[in-house]
Structure formats: C-alpha cells, structure tokens
C-alpha cells in the first residue's frame, strides 16, 4: 500500500523498519472490536436486542466517524484540522437557515452546506499555505472564526423540525429497499460507502500515494516534483466537506441545529484517527484502521453507557485506551518511541509545506 511512497522518501530521510507488519494494527483493532461487541452483548442487557438494535446503535456515533474519515487525510499529511467541529456547526446552521429562512429545498441546502464545508476547508489551507501558519494554530484560529459565525448565523431561535425525509438520514433505515435492508441504518450505509471510497483513495489511488508521501517527508515530496500545496489544499477541503456532512447528519439526527452542535466532534474524531493507527506526525496508517477504530470507540461508549457506567467513566476510559494503545504502538515503532523522540519530531516537523531546517 503506502510502502511505495516511503521508499521514495527514504532517499532523503534515512528511516526504515519503522512500523508494525502491515495489517497488524488493523487486525488487533478488529479483535478488540469483536471482543467489545461480544463482551457487551453477553454482559450488558439491552446492548444486543436483535441485529436491528445493534446496528441501530451506530446511529449514535457515526457522525464522529464521518469527521474521522476526512480528518484522516489531513493527519496523513502531518497536519491537523481543529476546525472540524466549528465547520460542522457552521455549515449545518447555514444549510438549516437556507431551508428555513429562504425556503431552499432541504436537499439543495444540504448540498450547499457540504460545499460550504469544502470552502471553509480550502480557507484553512489558504491560511496554512499562504500565511505560513502552522496547521495547529491556523485551524485553531479558524475554528474560533467559524464557531462565532455559527453563533451569529443561528440567532436566538435556531431552526428545527426538518422534513421527515431529511430526518430519516439520521434515524431511518434502508427499509424501502427490502426486508433485510431494513436492518441497516441509512447513516451506516452512508458511512460504509464513504469508508470504502476513502480507503481506496488513500491505499489505491495516485492521490493517496502523494498524500502519504507529503506526510512522510514533505521535502522529499517536493523535491520529487509533487505540488504539495495542492495536495494539502485537497486534504483540508475534503476534511471540511466531511465535517459539514457530519454536521448535517447530526442536524438530521437531532432534528435541530445548534451553533455548538459540532463541538463534541473534534476530540473524539482525533482519538478515532490516532487509535486507528494514523501517525499524528503524518505519513503512515490506513483508513481501514480508522474505520475499525470508529466502530471500537463507538460501540465501547454505547456499551459502557448501556451497562450503566456514567458518561464520566466512559469518557475517562476513552482517554485511557487512547494512551495505552499509542504507548503499545510506540513500543513497536522506532519513529515515535520515547518522549525525546516525540518532542524532537514535533520541533522538527512543525509545518509540512515549509523547508526543513535540517
């Protein structure tokens, strides 16, 4: 898969033997997923009440997964997008206002909402590339801008009460396609389709190869004649579009929009991406890992809540799992082992598009 890109990168940066055997991390996560689902199914009454209810649980967390898919691309480039929550809020609020104030058809408004998300992502990229601001700071800044814009756009009484066909996206199933399809929530179908698309994009397409290469070594990528700016802009635009899609699914799920509705997405989505095996420094990891990690963290949280653990314990456990899994991963990974290496790596690669001081 992405082995080919680092092979090129190695010419400039002599690093190798840097990660788990291919698929090892994904396999471990899949085992964890099976354990989580089977464990809660056996131990927590109410977790498994037929296949429809089990699949229905995914409706409660797949918006996080949509954000995680988009964010994966950005993190693969070695960047970060802290504005996803604000983008989700802003584009959902704008789409809802288009529908409620200006009478735009809800689906047209949703399509515009996704386009707005992509534009906001491009704006992030412009700030990073043109102003030379680190992704962390740039998207932190834009997240405040977008978040405040969402508050302003929402007004005192944000729209709610969408048409039933729209709310079906968040809470309906594919029931009209046949009896078995009635088990599958529309959200799950949407996520599955996009997961396949993103996985193919990263693992099989030329774009995926340059994306990973830019993340692994931006200098090597640029010296190889890759237009790194264009790759980064695409990644941030896709992240923005996916965030706004998540915002719209949330709007559908809650049958309402709120200017702060996306705030919860960010940290969990980052956790999903990193637990999925994508290095926070960029250049390694697979979308398949992220997809499994979305399911692991999602089912874990739902299972914990159904088993009667409080939100507090559940949230704490999520943090603990993230730390433990990354620590375990780092044991097998020369690139990230030890605090000194991590700090060094942070200092050394603050912003992908710029020249490496070494």
């Amino acid at each position, binding site marked *: 898969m992405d082995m080919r890109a680092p092979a090129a990168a190695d010419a400039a940066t002599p690093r190798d033997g840097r990660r788990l055997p291919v698929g090892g991390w994904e396999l471990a996560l899949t085992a964890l997923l099976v354990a989580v689902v089977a464990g809660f199914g056996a131990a927590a009454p109410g*977790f498994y009440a037929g296949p429809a209810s089990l699949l229905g649980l995914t409706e409660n967390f797949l918006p996080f997964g949509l954000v995680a898919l988009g964010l994966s691309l950005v993190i693969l480039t070695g960047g970060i997008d802290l504005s996803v929550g604000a983008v989700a809020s802003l584009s959902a609020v704008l789409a809802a206002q288009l529908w409620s104030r200006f009478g735009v058809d809800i689906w047209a408004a949703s399509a515009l909402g996704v386009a707005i998300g992509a534009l906001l992502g491009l704006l992030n990229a412009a700030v990073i590339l043109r102003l030379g601001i680190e992704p962390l700071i740039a998207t932190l800044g834009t997240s405040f801008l977008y978040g405040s814009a969402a508050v302003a756009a929402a007004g005192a*009484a944000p729209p709610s009460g969408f048409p039933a066909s729209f709310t079906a996206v*968040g*809470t309906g199933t594919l029931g009209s396609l046949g009896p078995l399809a009635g088990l599958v929530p529309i959200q799950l179908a949407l996520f599955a389709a996009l997961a396949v698309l993103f996985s193919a994009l990263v693992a099989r397409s030329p774009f995926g190869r340059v994306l990973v290469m830019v993340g692994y070594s931006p200098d090597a990528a640029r010296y190889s004649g890759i237009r790194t700016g264009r790759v980064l802009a695409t990644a941030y635009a896709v992240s923005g579009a996916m965030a706004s899609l998540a915002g719209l699914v949330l709007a559908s799920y*809650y049958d309402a929009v709120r200017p702060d*509705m996306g705030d*919860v997405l960010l940290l969990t989505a980052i956790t999903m991406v990193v637990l999925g095996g994508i290095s926070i420094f960029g250049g390694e990891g697979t979308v398949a890992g992220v997809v499994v990690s979305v399911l692991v963290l999602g089912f874990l949280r739902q299972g914990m*809540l159904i088993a009667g653990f*409080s939100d507090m314990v559940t949230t704490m456990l999520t943090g603990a799992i993230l730390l433990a899994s990354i620590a375990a991963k780092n044991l097998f990974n020369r690139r990230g082992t030890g605090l000194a290496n991590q700090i060094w790596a942070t200092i050394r690669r603050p912003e992908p598009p710029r020249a490496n001081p070494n």
Partner: protein
Amino acid sequence: MNRRRRSLGGAALALALSVSPLFAADGAMPDTAKRIKVAMVPKLVGLSVFKANEQGAIAEAKDLNIDFLYTGPVTASAQGQVDVFNSLIARKFDVITTTSNNPTQLAPSLERAMKAGIKVVAYDSDVAPQARDFFIQNTSYPAFGKALVESVIKYAGPDAKIAILSSTPDATIQNEWIGAVKSYLAATYPKVQIVATEYGQSSPSQSLTAGLNILQAHPDVTGIIAPDGAAVVGAAAAIEKLGKTGKVFTTGASNPDAVRQYVKSGVIKETPLWDEVKEGRLVLYVARLAADGALKDNDTFTAPGLGTYEVKDKVIVFSEPLVFDASNIDQYKF
C-alpha cells in the same frame, strides 16, 4: 386507581368502590406495589443545584419503591444527554426525568423513549412539549420576575438605573424571566430604566468581565439583575472588585452555596430561587404517578410532605420563589 382496586380482595373491592369518590377528591394517588426504574438526567453531573435535586429524589425513591439512578453528561451538552437517554431506553427504564440543555435537540430521542413505553417527566428546563408526558416548572415566570425585581429595587430605589446580566441570548428560562422582569417593572416601577443587557455565557469569568463592563460603562447603574447562577456570581464579584458594595445591588438565580459569601458581605441583599431538594422529591413523586398511569393531563394530587399540586395541560408549577437573605441562607445547604 384501577390497579389499586384490583390488588384488593373482593370484599375490599366493594369498599374501595364505595370510598373511591373520597380518593378522587384527593386527586391522583401512586401505586407503589410494583418496583420501577426511574432515571434523573440533569444538564450535567457535578453541579450543586442538580445534586440537591438528586438528594431529594433519593429520599423520595425509598418511599415510592423506586430504583433510582442519577446520571448525566460531563459537560452541559444536549448530545451528551441524548447519549444517556439512548442507553436508558436500551436498559428499559420506566421513567426518564430530565432538565434539558436544549428543548429541540433532545426531542427525537425522548420521543423514541415515549414510543418504547417510557414515561418522560421534564423538570427545571422544559423540552419540546410533544417529547414529554409532564413538566414540573420551578416557579411561575411572573412570580420569579417579581421576586427578582423586588430583591433589587427595594434597595436601589424605584427610579434606579439597572442592568441585566444573563447567560446566553437563546436561554429559554432566562429569556422568560427577563420578559417577566420587564413586564413587572413596566406595571409597578415605570421609572426604572434598563440601561444595558449583557451575557456571561454561564461562565463565572465571562460573567465577571461582563459585570465589570456594565459597571464601568454605566457608572450610574445601581442594580444588576442576573438571572443565572454564574451571572449573579460574576455581577457580585464585579461590584466587590470595584468597591461598589452598598451602592450597587445585584440579585439572581443561584444556589445558596455559590452566593453565600456575597449575601453575607451585603453585595446581594436578597436572591430568589426555590427549594431544589424539595423539587427533587416532587420530580420522583410525579415520576411514580406517571409510571402508574395515575396522572391525567389536567389533574390535582397531594404529595405527602410536599403539598397539593395542580396539573394544568401537563404542566405542574412547583412552588413560589424562595428568597434567600442573610437571615435564612444558612438553613439551606446546596
């Protein structure tokens, strides 16, 4: 009533039938024969006003044969509450009681709960009416508006210039209270002027900043009505910081613990709220009645030790405002 009669023997049945008009005069009665599971979902866990509700609810749960669970999100988010509701639906609770972070976002999940046969009782902050069986309102809005005005104007005078420091522009209860304050002022103290309205986002530090802004921009303000727990603390701290204690008076809607020091130092002369512990007891009592199917949309009932309440179009008003001042505040610990 029906279930109650069925549980009695044949002879008793006749008796029960003959006395049933007496029972009816007392309104709805709970049937505690069957143990039920009731959850209380606050806006977030770890806030002392909601803990006070829990304290009352726990006491009441014992008498009413209820398995009681207090659970909620870590931050005040509607999404967090929905997560909790979903888990309660899966665990087949009989009643969900909640105070909502947002009336519209919670509705779909609570409607799913109602479809699954779960009774929903909202208290404190209402959800959309179609998404709950009953709503327990803390106090009536006009009564609270009046209490807010009186607890400042009594000291600042009937021709004072006052400011309002609220939580957020879209907070339902706060806006209702501010509306009630305005209409009471117009009717009773027409000379009082509201010169500024600021928002502290329910954050103590932002409320302090907003309070300082008000006092510095309007030095002639002598009263701040801050109908939010964080806002009143921010306003009081701002008054103290600028050395205006005794010249500017504030009042709000806060639990006694949070404002005790300001009440004692005289920045706050009076501040209204209601008895949160007692409200928690009423919530559980109504939950029991709702689970038994014993409460109609328009009804009356007498809860032992709490009083007689009227249900009007599914809404129950809990009590008159309870005004804390230096003389009584130490009787209330929450």
